[in-house]
């Protein structure tokens, strides 16, 4: 008779709620895993590889990404310092990257519901921003070294 006092956990209402919850979690399974977006949109384009590195959403993952970007930017700036002609090359490439970013985002603007296009636009903006920063810092330091700028004046745009 003791057993009759125990409430069964698998009551139909609880089971139903569990199924609904599980099916809902299933929807976000890929996103929760931090998988990068595979261009193609329809979900059955297994021939394509994920574009770029997986981009996590947690603070730890974002911090790691930021560190990597800063590291890369530092190396680009350092390269410009060693040879002023590098600045010219870096800035020319930076301009080209930003021109492409404008074109890509213009296409993406017309298709706001297409996640692949939005992701590519976002990525292009990040690349443009990083390349521009490298150019500005390279030129600023190069001018500073040759005495071309006023002391204490930053070549970087204020944010």
């Amino acid at each position: 008779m003791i057993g009759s006092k125990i409430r069964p956990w698998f009551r139909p209402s609880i089971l139903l709620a569990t199924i609904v919850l599980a099916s809902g979690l299933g929807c976000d399974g890929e996103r929760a895993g931090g998988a990068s977006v595979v261009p193609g949109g329809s979900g059955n384009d297994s021939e394509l590889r994920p574009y770029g590195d997986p981009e996590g959403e947690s603070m730890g993952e974002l911090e790691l990404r930021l560190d990597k970007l800063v590291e890369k930017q530092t190396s680009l700036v350092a390269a410009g310092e060693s040879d002023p002609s590098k600045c010219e090359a870096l800035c020319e490439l930076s301009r080209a990257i930003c021109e492409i970013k404008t074109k890509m985002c213009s296409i993406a603007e017309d298709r706001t519901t297409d996640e692949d296009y939005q992701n590519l636009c976002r990525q292009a903006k990040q690349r443009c921003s990083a390349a521009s920063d490298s150019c500005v810092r390279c030129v600023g330091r190069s001018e500073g070294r040759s005495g071309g700028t006023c002391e204490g004046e930053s070549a970087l745009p204020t944010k």
Partner: protein
Amino acid sequence: MRHGLIAVLGLGMLACGEPNEAPRERKLDIRLETHAVLPGQPSAAGLAYLDQVLAAHREADAIAEPLARADRLIAALELPIPERDGAAEIAAIGLAARASEALLEAHADARVIALLGPIVPTERSLVIDRASARCLVALGDAAARSGDHVLAMGSYARALDMLTLLLEEEAES
């Protein structure tokens, strides 16, 4: 109860579906395979090829009309490219870039797509060079003007990758 479960599962699956939007007609293809050209002496055949390419560029310089200029450059593209010669490979892709830019100037977008389609397909490894990026941008521009946003976006994304590689290469050199 069983019918209730089926209904709930069905609703759950519907909720997982794609948002209600018109599907893209074609897949985006942004694959970019690249290779670098190692420094070295050009072969005799490579030098002869470079001379011919240089002559084509000089003749093109003197042609004001973009279509005629493009035709001169495209004629040079018919020349056999010496194999295993990096300088010749870069010269050839440079010809294609300039020819396609001249075609773009003349608004011959279909010709740009026809010219560059076989030169910079996603299946082919492209030499890491500004000329490759120029080809990809020209292909993107022609596709965008023709209304082919899938090809345009794919080509621009590949150009962006190529330029990023060049930026990194520049920093490391």
